[in-house]
């Protein structure tokens, strides 16, 4: 190499360990690596912030079409009429203030070979490292009768925003004595306990406001997250307002008819006054375009740094990843973002990628004043995330009422903290 090294050369050199001792901090600062992040949710917005924190000299760009993000956690409270949608919304001004460039456009395509992202405007953005945090998209072809039009009659409300409001409006408009049918898919899907929290809070709304109404959950599974705790709460609080029908009891929905407002299982057809269809899902569309999603529709990753196992230079975090047993949650996405940012910084500084422990806690409200939780702790075992035994666990069964109330307060504190860390 003669003359001054070009940015490309410096970064290419980073890949080879032999070159590392030669790379001093000033050289790195000069190289100004270009980090591009797609998706401004709990994963992407946190990734942008923490990359900028660990690599202040880096050029960090966040691509997100929405000016304000609407958070999914706590949106079940909005559906139950206990919280405003505005309380779920967060902007990017504070990220801009620390030097992150925020582009209000969609990422339409990724060329992993050329290392460029194509925007909706047609502009191309070059990157040295690309972090995709695209969340989920609905698999519109997976449930017979459920297409984008059907979602206006039978909202999924599984991406917070207009769908959340729509389901809330339908519940409000439903006369007392009505039946709500909720359809739940098999795993994997975003927020494993989410359907059951939502059902609890809708049942609470009925119990207090529309006592002759009822919610039926038609489930494609026999087992679900925090099941004993939910079943206990339902028996205690909502015996007349909530019924769960698992797969073995013919609960799996195989088709819907939005015109007739019916949902069909293998053997029965249910008529709904309000239908909440939580459909099968996949990684956000850009993942497939970038070539980081596999045949399952989700993205395999290396758990050390959440780099894609399918494309070099691309990292995937959050709901889009195959990270089981770590669930698809805001908590997981947020921690994965921090880990990914840290490992990228280490790599670019020529430091070793030390393995890291990951964790997740999911709170679910069972009434507006009572919550239950599940916590998991995970390590990387031969390239696979694995639960660390006798770590984490469930809330206790049948506790003093103060325990559930304390967890509801913890949930609130958690939401405040994670949104502050991400967007604040």
């Amino acid at each position, binding site marked *: 190499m003669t003359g001054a090294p070009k940015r490309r050369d410096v970064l290419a050199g980073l890949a080879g360990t032999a070159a590392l001792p030669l790379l001093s901090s000033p050289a790195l600062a000069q190289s100004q690596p270009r980090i591009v992040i797609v998706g401004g949710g709990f994963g992407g917005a946190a990734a942008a912030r923490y990359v900028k924190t660990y690599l202040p000299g880096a050029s960090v760009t966040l691509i997100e079409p929405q000016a304000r993000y609407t958070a999914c956690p706590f949106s079940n409270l909005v559906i139950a009429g206990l919280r405003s949608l505005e309380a779920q919304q967060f902007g990017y001004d504070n990220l801009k203030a620390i030097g992150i460039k925020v582009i209000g456009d969609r990422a339409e395509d990724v060329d992993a070979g050329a290392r460029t992202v194509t925007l909706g405007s047609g502009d191309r953005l070059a990157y040295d490292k690309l972090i995709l945090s695209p969340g989920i998209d609905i698999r519109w072809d997976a449930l017979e009768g459920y297409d984008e039009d059907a979602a206006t009659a039978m909202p999924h409300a599984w991406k917070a925003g207009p769908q959340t409001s729509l389901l809330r409006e339908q519940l409000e408009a439903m006369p007392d004595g009505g039946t709500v049918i909720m359809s739940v898919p098999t795993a994997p899907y975003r927020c494993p306990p989410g359907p059951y929290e939502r059902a609890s809070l809708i049942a609470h709304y009925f119990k207090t406001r529309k006592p002759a109404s009822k919610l039926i959950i038609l489930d494609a599974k026999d087992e679900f997250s925090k099941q004993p705790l939910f079943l206990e709460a339902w028996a205690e609080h909502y015996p007349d307002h909530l019924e769960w029908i698992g*797969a*073995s009891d*013919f609960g799996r929905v195989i088709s819907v008819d939005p015109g007739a407002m019916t949902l069909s299982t*293998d*053997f029965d057809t249910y008529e709904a006054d309000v239908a909440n269809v939580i459909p099968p899902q996949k990684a956000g569309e850009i993942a497939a375009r970038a070539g980081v999603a596999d045949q399952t529709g989700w993205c395999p990753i290396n758990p050390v740094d959440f780099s894609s196992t399918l494309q070099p230079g691309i990292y995937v975090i959050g709901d889009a990843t195959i990270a089981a047993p770590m669930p698809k949650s805001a908590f997981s996405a947020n921690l994965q973002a921090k880990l990914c940012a840290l490992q990228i910084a280490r790599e670019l500084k020529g430091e070793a990628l030390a393995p890291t422990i990951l964790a997740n806690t999911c709170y679910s409200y069972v009434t507006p004043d009572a919550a239950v939780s599940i916590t998991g702790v995970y390590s990387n075992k031969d390239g696979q995330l694995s639960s660390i035994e006798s770590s984490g666990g469930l809330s206790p069964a049948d506790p003093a009422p103060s325990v559930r109330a304390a967890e509801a307060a913890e949930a609130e504190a958690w939401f405040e903290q994670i949104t502050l860390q991400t967007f604040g």
Partner: protein
Amino acid sequence: MATIRIAAPDTASAGEVIELKALIQHPMETGYRSGPDGKRIERDIIEKFEVTYDGETVFEADLRPGIAANPIFTFYTRATTSGPIVFKWTDQDGESWSETHELTVE
């Protein structure tokens, strides 16, 4: 008595291809699992599923421990004549359960 659910049309026109669906609630215990007491749970599986239509076999299957609990079969046959469709399951000990659905061909 195991719970059986059948989904089949009551009427069909001659020559029409009809969908038949049958589920039986059964644990399909593999014999490889341990119970809470640490002892092996004994194998208990259905081994045979047969369907006859107007006396003629139109579908049959051998089941093995790899088949999950509550096995469901969906298959198709051509409606030819009015008659009974008999769904029959037989377990490893020879115990059997059956359900009959009358099809009218117009």
